[in-house]
């Protein structure tokens, strides 16, 4: 709903009557290879008047013109980087849906894998400290609990043990 509303608000701002749907047949390039590149590039570029939509998905008029510009530049022989940097020069990093790989975004790009690594280290520690060299005797309360647990495990969850 939010995306559609965002798109309609964008449409309201531009007040251009009938709204077109995303990529129109008239936009499509003859050359399938160039068209493919243009589509891929369009999916990397944010529609600047929408909420988190690529220009490829967007119904907004400005998004359509941006798609047209992407196709024009691709046809003129611009590389993918050229097209993206043309947009970034005008709209800033905001226009890229895939943030650039540069030091200030390292947190974003490495963060998940660093987190996974830290998590793995913690898990390893946890496993280690769970294995004392000499088993500590159970306290009275723990023994009671164990007995109760065993009784219950036996009575209730026979099926939970893999055969």
């Amino acid at each position, binding site marked *: *709903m*939010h*995306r*559609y*509303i*965002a798109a*309609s*608000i964008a449409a309201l701002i531009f007040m251009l009557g*009938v*709204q*077109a*749907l*995303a990529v*129109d*047949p*008239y936009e499509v390039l003859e050359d399938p290879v160039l068209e493919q590149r243009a589509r891929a590039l369009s*999916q990397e570029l*944010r529609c600047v008047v929408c*909420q*988190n*939509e*690529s220009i490829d*998905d967007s119904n907004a008029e400005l998004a359509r013109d941006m798609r047209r510009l992407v196709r024009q530049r691709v046809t003129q022989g611009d590389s993918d980087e050229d097209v993206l940097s043309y947009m970034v020069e005008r709209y*800033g*990093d*905001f226009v*890229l*849906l*895939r*943030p650039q790989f540069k030091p*200030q*975004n390292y*947190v*974003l*790009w490495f*963060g*998940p894998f660093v*987190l*996974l690594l830290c*998590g*793995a280290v913690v898990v390893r520690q*946890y*496993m280690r400290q*769970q*294995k004392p060299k000499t088993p500590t005797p159970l306290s009275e*309360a723990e023994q*009671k*609990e164990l007995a*109760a*647990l065993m*009784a*219950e*495990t036996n009575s*209730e*969850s026979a*099926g*939970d*043990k*893999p*055969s």
Partner: protein
Amino acid sequence: MSPELGHFALVLALPVALAQSIVPLIGAYRRDAALMAIAGPAALLQMLLIGTAFAALTHAFIVSDFSVMNVFQNSHTSKPLLYKITGVWGNHEGSLLLWVAILAVFGAAVAAFGGALPDRLKARALAVQGMIGLGFIAFILFTSNPFLRVDPIPVQGQGLNPLLQDPGLAFHPPMLYLGYVGFSMAFSFAIAALLEGRVDAAWARWVRPWTLAAWSFLTVGIGLGSWWAYYELGWGGWWFWDPVENASFIPWLTGTALLHSAIVVEKREALKSWTVLLAIITFSLSLLGTFLVRSGILTSVHAFASDPTRGVFVLGMLVVAVGGSLALYAAKAPALEPGGLFAPVSREGGLLINNLFLSTAAATVLLGTLYPLIAEALELGTLSVGEPYFNTVFIPLMVPLVIVMGIGPLMSWKRSDLAGVIGRLKGALVAVVVIFGIALAMSGTSVVDIAGAAGMGLAAWLFASAFIEWSARVKLFGGSLGATWQRVKSLPRASHGMTVAHMGMAILIAGVSGSSAWKQENILTMVAGESVEVAGFTVTFNGAELVQGPNYESLQGTFTARKGNSTVTLTPERRVYDQPVQQTTEAAIHTTFWSDLYLVIGDGPGDREQFVVRAFFEPFVPFLWYGILLMGFGGCISLTDRRHRIGAPKRATASAHPAEVEA
């Protein structure tokens, strides 16, 4: 029923919630049974009061009482009755009232059916529920009151956003809220356990059904939203990594982790502190999901109007609820008794890896969603984080998770034999190779084809291993049919539920992979009589006409799709609603078991002869919905396990301990 009655009931609910939050806590502290006993009746009374308020608002919507501002702004007499009712929660104020009403019902359920709970745990959990209710009721009354009157009384309402006049979207919010609120139960029990200083198997047994129910609702709720986006937005996408979608997906990820770690607490009395943390975090993220989009903090353009007063209130509530509970955790968790022995290669080891990946995935989505905000706060500039980023980092986190998902359920508790388990999964490996081969043979050799085929192989792995695990449990291939049936019946429902949910996940993965890799698009202009080939279908355009609907005008195209001997007629529409004026796309979808043929019609270049037609072939998209439904269904099967029933007999450990533990 007058709106004033509803308003009055809501105002009354405030002191009741206050009493429910404080008195039982004092009672639990002083071991005063009489004070603790307040919790139950207070929870029931609160359900009665909030139920009255909700009923009053619903009534106002049904009879189109435009003297109520909220009804005036969000309803219209010409709307069908169903959408008058769903309009109650189709707006900020009403949706909050629904939220708190569900909370009250859940709280009352604990009060009514929680007889088996230890008194102090119950009193404390209900007190925490009372606090959550208190926060929400105050938020509604002070910033978002749905009962405000308007004078003079307008003769007609402004109408409901036509996009909300749709079954998929009408029931999307209640499902999400059932999920979020369900997680509040796990949260309340977690806080109660921290106050108690004790987490045990009985505690986990109490938390699990609520978490399961919440998880099932949230799964279906997210699925409904995705389904709606697919058929309504007109470009055949079903997931966009939009902040609002992520806001519900993050608690789903941590909730899934919670579901699994609670099993470890229940069976092995390990991972206690972590499970408590997950319960707190899952609900905190649900709060974030409910609020972030309404506060003006995260998004600027959104359906729910944001106003700074609300933002401040929301932030205050988050600070108290999230900050307070995490501070309590910091103080109390280290003192929780440590768990038992824990070998890496074991069922619990597998579940721990599951938790590692799920929580990393949740953190990743959270990071990506909030990063633009963080970057701006740190003055690193304005940037966007969208679909390409999420796909790049999320998929590598999911692949190992799914591989472990296949192995984990076959491992035994405490100590397992990895080689033996993998030996039993030979069949699954064969399935992977076969499915991967078939997928490649049927598609091609581009990178996308290989990725799609690999996704299919992964799905086959999960499905086959879930099947192998289940069939071994019931000895499907050993003995008579009757004996097998007996074993099927005696296997705990939770095991069946797990199998069904994991298979659902496998089917979902097949849907995600197949639809992402092999979608075909045809975007063209057509005149009546023209045909186009789409993935084996011959789609003929028969013409388009203007059709008058009850509260909209529609451009309706008629198409015939032929494949072999079968013919279907498809009528995609483009509607312009009149109250309020808004345009919607109604895609026409022809679903076969494997795929969808998806047609959208638009205006042509000027004249009324040519029309823009989008004909998409969406392979495996139906698998997304099958998978999600199966996952939700699996959750429900688990819920019917007798060990999960709310009135399940009190555990021996639960009754044996409380007195001595806290002495």
